[in-house]
Every structure is written in structure tokens, then in C-alpha cells.
């Protein structure tokens, strides 16, 4: 019937990219930047990792060094997403353009970059492989913890690639920083009321830039995890799909708390693949309806948080608004 031992690992693996995206977006939103470009950033993060890994595998030939195989894609991914973050910051923080517009343009751009390089990388580099299948490097990404056995427990909790654990750690650390440290307090002040924070001597521009860029880098890792671990190094166009938007929805679902996001992302991951586990007797059409679940759940949560209207559950007050000191 319902195979929980194989369901949970798959739900968690689906949830990890969402968790990266959600944590990144939360950091960015806490500083007042509603970054709708996250889907694009995640594509760029993924494809940059792929490009890094591809070039490395091409140059290394048969003997792939495990350390470099992880380091190069990781760095490429971080740099790629950082550039996207800088672009967003430049346009919205320095040039004070509307965040939604920039975000949407970034999503168009980022998805385009991902699909373009994914589809043309082989042609552009003039190599003779039939498709991008980075099995050699992805092996190092998807290696489970060394002390994991083969029992049900280690299958459910110890079998993931290192990035999955990184995602959980980042989420908890972010939650701690936001809630318990001075930096977090100041960041939240910037997001709630930049004018007041400015008067208190906080460097608004610095905080906003840092939060947005770090947020983008964290989100980019989600793309990297997806390609290198979940998809075992095979890039296919549009395969990442709408997970970026789901990550943004998750931010609201979790009420801007990354520690809740850890569990919520696994829940969403579960909803995302639930259709594979519900017996429908070969009725393909109904499966498509089950795929609606994560979106419907988000909508319901949106409605409820809107209705209950509790103060601590609201978005940062200045979310989406540019800050201009001389405005009144």
C-alpha cells in the first residue's frame, strides 16, 4: 500500500530545493526586498554548477578528483547566483526600480539562461558527447553520509547528499541569526521600517545589498542540489519547473521563519510527489489533479493568514518598497 520508507526520502529530496529557495527568499524579504526573481536565480545557480562541472569533467578526462568535483560546481553556482543578486540589488536598491518588475524580468532572463546553456552547452564548447550527463561529478554530490547503513532509519535520514544537510543547517542558522543576534535585529529593522533604522545609524544600503545577495546565493544552491544530486547530473530543459515560485509561496506558508521552513518544505515536497504514491489505477488524468495540491494548500494558507491578521505573522512592513532617504 503506502510505502512510507520510500515516500519520505523522496519527499525530502523534493523539499530540499524548496528549502534553499525559501531560506534565501526569507533572508531577502526580511530586508524588505521581495525578490520574485528567485525562480530565475535558481535556474542560473543550477546551470552555472552544470557549466562548472561540465568544463571540469571535460578537462579532467577520466580521473575526477572528488574535492575539485564538488568545489568547482559549488563555486560556479555561488558566483552565478551572486551576480543575479547583484543585478537585482543594483536595480532595486541603488536605482530604486519596482521590485516586482525587476523580479519578473529576472525570472524570464534566468530561466532563459538556464535553458539556453543547458541546450547549447555541447554545441558551444564543441565537444562530442551526446548529452549533458555529469555522472562522475554528481556521484560526489549524491553520496550519503559515511556512517549510514542500509536500514529503514538510515534510508530515511542518512542517505542524502551533503547539500541536503547543508540546506537544513543554513535554515536553522538563519533562523537563529534573524531571531537572536544583533545583525538579525538590525536586518529586521531595515525590513520593517528603513527610515527608523536609518535614523538609528544602520547602513540601509549595506544591509539590503548583503541580504539580497546572500539570499540569492542560498537560493542558487537549490538549483545546484536539484541538478547535481536529485537529477544525478542530467540537465533537461524546464525540468526544474515551477519550484522557484513554490519556494516563494513557502516563505508565506512558513510566516518568514526558516526553522519552520525545514519541515514545511518536506511537507511541500511530499505534496509535490504525492500523486506518484496514491493508487489511481492507471488513471493518468487524475494524477494531474493531485499535482495541484501544493498550490491549493498555499492558497488556503494565504487566505487564513490574511484573515487571522496576527501582528507577528505579517510580512515585513516595508516589503516591496524602495527606500529613498529624502522621501517623506
Amino acid at each position, binding site marked *: 500500500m503506502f510505502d512510507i520508507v520510500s515516500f519520505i526520502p523522496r519527499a525530502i529530496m523534493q523539499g530540499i530545493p524548496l528549502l534553499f529557495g525559501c531560506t534565501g527568499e526569507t533572508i531577502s524579504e526580511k530586508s524588505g526586498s*521581495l525578490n*520574485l526573481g528567485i525562480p530565475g536565480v535558481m535556474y542560473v545557480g543550477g546551470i552555472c554548477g552544470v557549466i562548472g562541472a561540465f568544463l571540469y569533467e571535460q578537462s579532467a578526462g577520466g580521473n575526477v578528483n572528488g574535492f575539485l568535483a564538488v568545489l568547482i560546481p559549488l563555486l560556479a553556482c555561488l558566483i552565478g547566483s551572486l551576480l543575479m543578486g547583484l*543585478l537585482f540589488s*543594483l*536595480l532595486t536598491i541603488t*536605482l*530604486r*526600480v*519596482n521590485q*516586482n*518588475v*525587476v523580479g*519578473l*524580468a*529576472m*525570472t*524570464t*532572463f*534566468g*530561466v*532563459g*539562461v*538556464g*535553458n*539556453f*546553456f*543547458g*541546450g*547549447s552547452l555541447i*554545441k*558551444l564548447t564543441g565537444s562530442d558527447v551526446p548529452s549533458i550527463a555529469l555522472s562522475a561529478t554528481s556521484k560526489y554530490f549524491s553520496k550519503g553520509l559515511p556512517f549510514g547503513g542500509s536500514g529503514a532509519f538510515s534510508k530515511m535520514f542518512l542517505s542524502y547528499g551533503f547539500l541536503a544537510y547543508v540546506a537544513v543547517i543554513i535554515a536553522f542558522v538563519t533562523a537563529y541569526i534573524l531571531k537572536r543576534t544583533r545583525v538579525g535585529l538590525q536586518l529586521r529593522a531595515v525590513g520593517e521600517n528603513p527610515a527608523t533604522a536609518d535614523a538609528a*545609524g544602520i*547602513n540601509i544600503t549595506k544591509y539590503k545589498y548583503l541580504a539580497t545577495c546572500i539570499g540569492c546565493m542560498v537560493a542558487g544552491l537549490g538549483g545546484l542540489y536539484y541538478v547535481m544530486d536529485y537529477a544525478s547530473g542530467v540537465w533537461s*530543459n524546464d525540468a526544474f519547473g*515551477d519550484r522557484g*515560485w513554490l519556494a*516563494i*509561496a513557502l516563505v*508565506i506558508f512558513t510566516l518568514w521563519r526558516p526553522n519552520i521552513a525545514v519541515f514545511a518544505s518536506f511537507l511541500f515536497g511530499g505534496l509535490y510527489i504525492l500523486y506518484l504514491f496514491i493508487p489511481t489505477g492507471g488513471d*493518468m*488524468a*487524475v494524477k*494531474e*489533479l493531485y*499535482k*495541484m495540491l501544493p*498550490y*491549493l494548500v*498555499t*492558497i488556503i494558507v*494565504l*487566505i487564513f493568514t*490574511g*484573515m487571522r*491578521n496576527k501582528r507577528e505573522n505579517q*510580512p515585513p512592513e516595508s516589503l516591496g518598497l524602495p527606500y*529613498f532617504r*529624502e*522621501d517623506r
Partner: protein
Amino acid sequence: MSKANREPLLHITKRKAMPWQQSWLIRLISIVAALIVCAVITTAATGLDPMSVYGTMLEGAFGTERKIWVLGKETAVLLCIAVAMAPAFRMKFWNLGGEGQVLIGTLISAACMIYLGDKIPSGLLILLMVVASVVVGAIWAGIPAFFKAKWNTNETLFTLMMNYVAIQLVAYYIIIWESPKGSGKVGIINQSTNAGWLPSLGSYQYLLNILIVALVTILMFVYLKYSKHGYEISVVGESQRTARYVGIKVDRVIIRTLLVSGGICGLCGFLMVAGTDHTITTTLAGGRGFLGVLVAWLAQFNPLAMVLVSLLLCVLSRGAGEISTIYGLNQSFGDILTGIILFFIIGSEFFINYKIHLRGGARKKGGSN
């Protein structure tokens, strides 16, 4: 951190209104700059000299009579979505659900064609499809609007999520309707009878679509500029408090405006199914729901500007498509170029709205980025 009371190198102030010639000049400069960057990137990717790249792109967009018609069709679709978005935006309601509202319009149109194609005369069928798609599109946008008006639910994400609900609904029906069975596609609907297909004016297949969109654009312009509703939308967009104070029923305006917005999106879906594609896929809207948002925002509700921006983006994407085909590159190349152009135009808004002063009182005029 603080550098004791030194005047900063750059100082930014808000501009008062800028004469329109100057602001359009800035936008034009930004587009030219963007095209230069695009050329550099294309050259880097294909190894061609930039002039022939643009030659190929123009060839791809305007090369043959058929290509010009396709361009017109694509522009009409994008323009229609942008026009649909305009009233919601003027009210500062971020309707990111264009994608879903268009798709749900295509879905109901296709449903009418499939189930009623051989039962009622084609003229009546088309009329029914128009009404159904407008109503369903309006409902799809009306749901988030209702919750926004009543409980101030976040509309950006609500409309966004509605897109995926619509996509999955379409995916569900595609499997039910698929023909031939197992192909995962619906195929051309009513190919033999042409029931529910929009007639082509003379030999021009896409002309009727373009004319309808042009009419909708003009009507929307009049609606926003000269009607009482249009005025109420502007007031609500500027300040909800002011609107309440002068006795405008804000929640009613929100819902009504989104019904209009969604209805036009639904109509756009109808035009796609009945006028051009005669089939249905989950990617029929193809990101244009989002692109329409950008067009509406960039054009600042100026209908002529909307036409121009839509045309520019379509020329670009058709041109990039041509380059991709010829040089064996991926079709997404167009998205990259579109993104670059958008960044530049968006960035140029800064130089229209703000003024930069250099240290020491010397004034520098804002050029483009």
C-alpha cells in the same frame, strides 16, 4: 563606518515631472544600449559580426510576408495580455495571474469546440466561446480579488498560485481529450469541420485577431481615461484612504477591475484557440502572462507605448528564434535577449525619476545606464 561629515560623491534627488520628449529619449538610449549589449553577447555565442546578427534577426522578424503576419499575431497576443493587466496595475494590484487567466480561457474555448462542435452552428458556437472564456477568465481573476478586497490577502502570490492550478486543470483535460490516444497532445481540434474557428478575413488568417485586439486596446484606453470607473481605479491606486474618504467603495472597485482584467485575459485565450492555434497545450500562454505585466508597467498605461513595447519584444524573440534555428542554438536565446532589454528599460526609469548631482554643486544630467 561613517566618514565624518564629508559630502558624498553622488547625491540623488527626485525629479519633478520630466517633459515627455526627454523621458522617451532616455528610454530610447537605454534600448539602443541594450541592443548593443545583446549584439555583443550574440557575437560571443555565435562568433558572427554584430551587423549580420541584426540582419538575421530582422530577417527572422520581417523576412517574408508570412513572417510579418506571425509577428503581428504574436504582438497582438502580448498586447492583449498587457492591456488586460493595465487596469489592475493602475490600481496597484499586482495581477501575476495572467498566465492562468489566459489558460483557463483557452480551456473553456477548447471544451466548447470539442463538446459542442457538431451540435450547434459555428456562429453560435463562437459566440458561446467568447462569452464562456470571458466569464471564466473573469472568475479566475475575481477569486483573488475577492479575498484581497475582503481580507487583504496577498494578491501577488494568490494570483501566482492560481496559474498553476489552471495549468494542472489544463493538463488534466489534455489527457482526457488527447487524440490520438497516448500521444499526450490534443491535436488540431475540429480539423475537418472547422467548427468554432474564427473566420479569416480574405486570405489573411490572423487579421481578425489583430483587429479585435486593436479594438480592445482602444476601448481600454477610453475606459481608463474617460470613464468614471477609470477615475475610481486611479484614485484607489493612488491612495485607498483617499478613495474611502471620497466615498468610493474600494472593495467593489478592486473586484470589478479584476473581473475586467481577467475577462480580457480569458478573451485572449479564446483568440489563441479559436483564431490561431486551434489546439490546447499547457504552455500556450508561454510566460506571456508575466511578460504582459512588464509591458504594461513599462508603457505606463500609454496604449501606443504598449503597442511599441510589445512589438519590440516580439521582434526580438522572433529574431532570436531565427538565430537559434540557423546556428543550432537553443530557442531560449530569445528569453536572454528579452531579459537584457528589459533590465535596461527598467533601469532607465531611475534616470527619469531621479536626478544625480556630483559633489561640489556641479550638476550632471542623467544619461542612460
